[in-house]
């Protein structure tokens, strides 16, 4: 087994399951920021995204014995985080406080590398994303923020490429309508 920082996910998972609980910190450090953009965009704010990532990491520990393929821990963790994000959105719906434009904490502050117009457009897009359905929002974030191809998104989410494209194309139309004053 390698040093703590060099160990593969599989090695760390086995060590944790073998009783070395502190080794889990390696996985926490490794993945804490990787899915931050996804969670923040799905939930509309950095704070909510951070809560989701934290919760997902704890849930992953609690269910680590169920991780059938420890070398694919990253994908397994993503599914837990994804479930957590959808559950949080459902909870908000039940409580009558869906994502709205006030939850635009993901939008970057003033960017030195952009014109005022570009910054405004960026913020408008962040706000507009909150008006998409969760499924449309997810595919848009994974493709255009995370830079994944459709087949990679299909591998992560279990959806077919055809259905992903349909969601995305509806998202394009919706965003065009929402962004018409900024394009």
């Amino acid at each position, binding site marked *: 087994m390698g040093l703590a920082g060099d160990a593969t996910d599989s090695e760390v998972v086995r060590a944790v399951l073998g009783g070395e609980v502190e080794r889990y910190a390696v996985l926490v450090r490794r993945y804490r920021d990787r899915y931050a953009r996804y969670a923040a965009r799905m939930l509309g704010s950095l704070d909510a995204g951070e809560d989701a990532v934290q919760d997902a990491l704890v849930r992953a520990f609690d269910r680590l014995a169920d991780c059938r393929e420890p070398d694919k821990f990253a994908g*397994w963790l993503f599914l837990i985080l994804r479930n957590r994000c959808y559950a949080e959105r459902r909870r908000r719906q039940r409580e009558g406080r869906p994502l709205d434009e006030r939850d635009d904490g993901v939008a970057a502050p003033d960017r030195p590398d952009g014109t005022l117009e570009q910054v405004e457009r960026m913020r408008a897009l962040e706000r507009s994303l909150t008006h998409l359905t969760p499924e449309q929002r997810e595919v848009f974030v994974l493709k255009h923020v995370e830079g994944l191809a459709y087949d990679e998104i299909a591998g992560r989410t279990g959806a077919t490429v055809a259905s992903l494209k349909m969601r995305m194309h509806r998202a394009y139309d919706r965003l065009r309508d929402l962004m018409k004053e900024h394009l």
Partner: protein
Amino acid sequence: MTLGYHPLVKRLLDGELSLAELPSELRAEGAEALRLVGAVDRTPLVLSPALDDRVMAVVRRHAASRGRRAWHWLTAARDVELRLRVRPVVWAGALAVAAGVALLLLARAPGSTPTVAPVALGGARDSVLVRFVLYAPGARHVAVAGTFNQWDRNAAPLVRAGTAGVWTTTLALPVGQHQYAFLVDGERWVSDPAAPAINDGFGRRNSMVAVTARGAHTL
């Protein structure tokens, strides 16, 4: 309501076409669409440095409470049930019939329930021999993986028992509840048809077996 983008413009946004490949009458719409996706902020987000400590604090607490729960579970009085079941099922054509698991009590306290097939185990009273059987006549390789071997797909291969397509292995499992599944030819996961299964939350079924210091049974 603004009209939606032309299908060719959507293909442009999907990266399947370039702006130059669009018909000239669609290039203005294409340029507008590119401004839209160009507004995506891909700046990496860095979460609070305190997140690591918060997660590990909860993890330590859960690990400790898990230990307490395990101790209570081990020390609580309970009935012991032994089962030997073989149940045919149809599985995926190639593996037409499968048979299940036989659980054999090994280490038992004096005076406990008689075992199905007593076998000595060097005095290890916290382990129980569990015999796994899978009927898989078309398989080239079968292994069993589960929580007892950290889902290591190489740790517990089954061997052919005769020529009838029966694969078997016997493992000494620690006391506790275990989830497991068979891995056929290194790629197909098969749950045990003779044992109850639970959804692992990700669309797959894990079989369940409980092992106590005085016996073992399917849940």
